[in-house]
């Protein structure tokens, strides 16, 4: 059984560090020989979600958990929340600042890209914060009895 757990803090407004958690998550998945398709789906979704916390929130974190061929990511931030989730999920809709656009983000595609990448996505939000849970399944993993923990 493969089992791994890690917590990363995500700082609001820090564009230099944005993507660091996603990069480390990708490195772990690569090390554990998950399929390329899964590596890409998880990396893209976690990078988009991390960027969202950097751009839109006052700061937050991500918890990364691997259980066999399933990957769980839980992104939590401390507000100010998403006013209208359905609108935020619309491709092209964005409330991003000019600063985030200068950093190459704010096209309004992030949430829908996350949804397309993940096997399951739940998103709840109020003014105190937002919680996004993602689940990914690596269908290319051949299940075996070997024990592996890193």
């Amino acid at each position, binding site marked *: 059984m493969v089992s791994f757990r890690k917590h990363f803090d995500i700082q609001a407004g820090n564009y230099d560090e944005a993507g660091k958690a996603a990069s480390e998550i990708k490195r772990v998945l690569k090390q554990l020989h998950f399929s390329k398709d899964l590596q*890409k789906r998880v990396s893209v979704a976690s990078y988009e979600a991390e960027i969202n916390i950097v751009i839109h929130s006052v700061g937050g974190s991500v918890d990364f958990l691997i259980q066999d061929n399933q990957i769980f990511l839980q992104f939590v931030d401390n507000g100010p929340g998403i006013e209208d989730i359905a609108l935020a999920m619309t491709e092209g809709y964005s409330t991003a600042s000019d600063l985030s656009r200068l950093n*190459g*983000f704010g096209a309004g595609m992030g949430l829908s890209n996350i949804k397309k990448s993940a096997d399951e996505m739940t998103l709840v939000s109020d003014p105190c914060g937002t919680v996004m849970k993602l689940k990914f399944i690596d269908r290319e993993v051949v299940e075996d009895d070997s024990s592996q923990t890193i």
Partner: protein
Amino acid sequence: MLTLEAIVEKYQCKIYTLQNYRPDKVIHFGFCSDLMSDALMIMNTVKEEGVLENTLLITGLATNQSIRTAEMLDVEVVLLVRGKVPADQVIELANESNIILLGTDLTMFNTSGLLYQEGIRGISSK
């Protein structure tokens, strides 16, 4: 198809990451955008193995985010256009992430047109 050596020579590219530069690396495809949101969305639709590894990300965005985007997508080469000069920390991140970072003074349109003439094609979003 073009090798990086040919691209560097034809478009007078500066090689910012000499430590991981591979002159014989082959490029078949290109994608250009200054918006990494779009790069992540469109390049993420490519499912065929080996395409993104041989794709050039052409951008005027000389920040860490171009490098991170390439890293997440398994794109190995980023070409900065319009003479954009990356900061030292961007070059450092590219080296760490094993991304080859090049730069040319050509505009994005001219770079893309010249590459297309040489047989480099855009990635398909479907």
